[in-house]
């Protein structure tokens, strides 16, 4: 680093000669019982996915045997001559490829997942794996490879400095061109999607085979971290712009402790909280942590709304909350008294050809509202208040457009 030089990334000088790398968590954090072993696995998966999203590298987690990158949570002196220093200070270190690529995390830190408290495991792990791949520290303060810890960021995305750095070692991502995106016709250019750190290529058969065989879902919502999650039975799928996020589906009880399976509906409100509905109750989550005093009865907070709904969503046209059930719908406006205006419920036929008995609905990050039923989906044109016209027309097959089938 030369003080007079423009700020940017730095390479250590070694890199992996293979592109398909394996890793194993050889020693879990002491807090693993609190965090959940599967959630630690998911967090480490997502940290590797950051680098997989920018290159043709692939990362496969193994639970036994020899791997390229071994991960350990250790404290103080732990056998490599580079002792940790207790809580704070040094959080972790990793070895460059020429030295083996392993990553060690200081187990005296209060590691946490998807919360502002403690030390965010994803953020530190994604940084350390940059070293495991051959990156040194960057002097671009906002880059992932800057040496200073920057705290939990629910809307994390790689800095361009990090992308240039990793691609200078392993090349750009050259996976086959994604299927036509589900974004609207050129008439309304799609919003710039946040760079999903995940592999943006359609997933391998494994992740999406269930959804491809039976695309019916229970609910779908975009959460405050900017990611879209589809819920089906006991599992949850994180969606990318073209398929299923690497390493999903995951069990609902692991990612959303306290949330039951087979939910009816979900929506994320402007307070950045996500509301899940099932039967006569609802649950409120901040990111993936259930808020205290939940679940509650639907009548306690959503008076006028029926039980056993089909779906719930925030309509892009007016920012109000809509509940659909059977052939009727209710509009819920928290700013009004009563929140459900006189004259509701109304017939779903008002929504011009949107079918009854829906499975799910969502206002997507491109601003459009989407309705899902069985193996089909519809995109709604809020301005004309009708199903959007496009080629191919709606309804479309949800598997190939949303789940990477």
């Amino acid at each position, binding site marked *: 680093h030369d003080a007079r030089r423009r700020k940017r990334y730095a390479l250590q000088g070694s890199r992996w000669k293979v592109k398909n790398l394996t890793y194993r968590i050889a020693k879990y954090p002491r807090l693993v019982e609190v965090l959940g072993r599967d959630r630690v696995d998911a967090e480490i998966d997502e940290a590797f996915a950051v680098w997989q999203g920018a290159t043709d590298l692939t990362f496969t987690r193994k639970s036994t045997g020899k791997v390229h990158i071994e991960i350990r949570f250790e404290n103080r002196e732990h056998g490599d001559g580079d002792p940790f220093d207790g809580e704070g200070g*040094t959080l972790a270190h990793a070895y460059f490829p020429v030295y083996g690529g392993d990553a060690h995390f200081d187990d005296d830190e209060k590691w946490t997942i998807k919360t502002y408290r403690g030390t965010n495991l994803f953020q530190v792990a994604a940084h350390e794996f940059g070293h495991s791949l051959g990156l040194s*520290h960057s002097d671009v303060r906002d880059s992932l490879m800057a040496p200073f810890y920057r705290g939990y960021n629910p809307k994390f995305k790689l800095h361009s400095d990090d992308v240039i750095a990793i691609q200078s070692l392993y090349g750009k991502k050259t996976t086959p061109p994604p299927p036509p995106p589900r974004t609207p016709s050129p008439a309304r250019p799609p919003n710039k999607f946040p760079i999903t750190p995940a592999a943006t290529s359609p997933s391998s058969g494994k992740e999406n085979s269930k959804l491809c065989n039976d695309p019916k879902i229970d609910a779908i919502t975009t959460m405050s971290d900017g990611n879209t999650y589809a819920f089906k039975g006991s599992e949850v799928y994180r969606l990318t712009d073209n398929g299923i996020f690497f390493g999903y589906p995951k069990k609902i009880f692991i990612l959303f402790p306290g949330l039951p399976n087979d939910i009816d509906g979900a929506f994320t409100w402007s307070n950045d909280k996500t509301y899940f509905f099932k039967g006569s109750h609802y649950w409120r989550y901040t990111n993936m942590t259930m808020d205290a005093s939940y679940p509650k009865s639907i009548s306690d907070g959503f008076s006028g709304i029926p039980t056993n709904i089909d779906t719930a969503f925030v309509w892009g046209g007016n920012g109000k909350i809509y509940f659909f059930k059977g052939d009727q719908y209710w509009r819920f406006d928290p700013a009004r008294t009563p929140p459900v205006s006189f004259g509701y419920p109304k017939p779903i036929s008002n929504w011009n050809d949107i079918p009854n008995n829906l499975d799910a609905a969502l206002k997507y990050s491109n601003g459009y509202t989407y309705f899902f039923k069985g193996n089909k989906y519809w995109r709604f044109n809020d301005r004309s208040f009708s199903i959007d016209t496009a080629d191919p027309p709606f309804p479309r097959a949800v598997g190939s457009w949303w789940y990477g089938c």
Partner: protein
Amino acid sequence: APVHTDTGAMMYLSNFGWLDPSSKKIGSQSLIDIRKSIQDFQAFAGLNITGELDEETVETMSLPRCGVRDKIG
């Protein structure tokens, strides 16, 4: 040693690759070298380049961080 002490700051600079590795121990570093090392670290961390262990520099040295050296010899 806490980084707000000279020794602590020297340890920090040494741990993260900012002191000349050829020096056997911190005491042998000449004042000019140390000043230069502090300036290099300040430039890297986006701080005012004063060559002094000023408050902002010591504060940055106290931040939780990665244990890998900033400067790989």
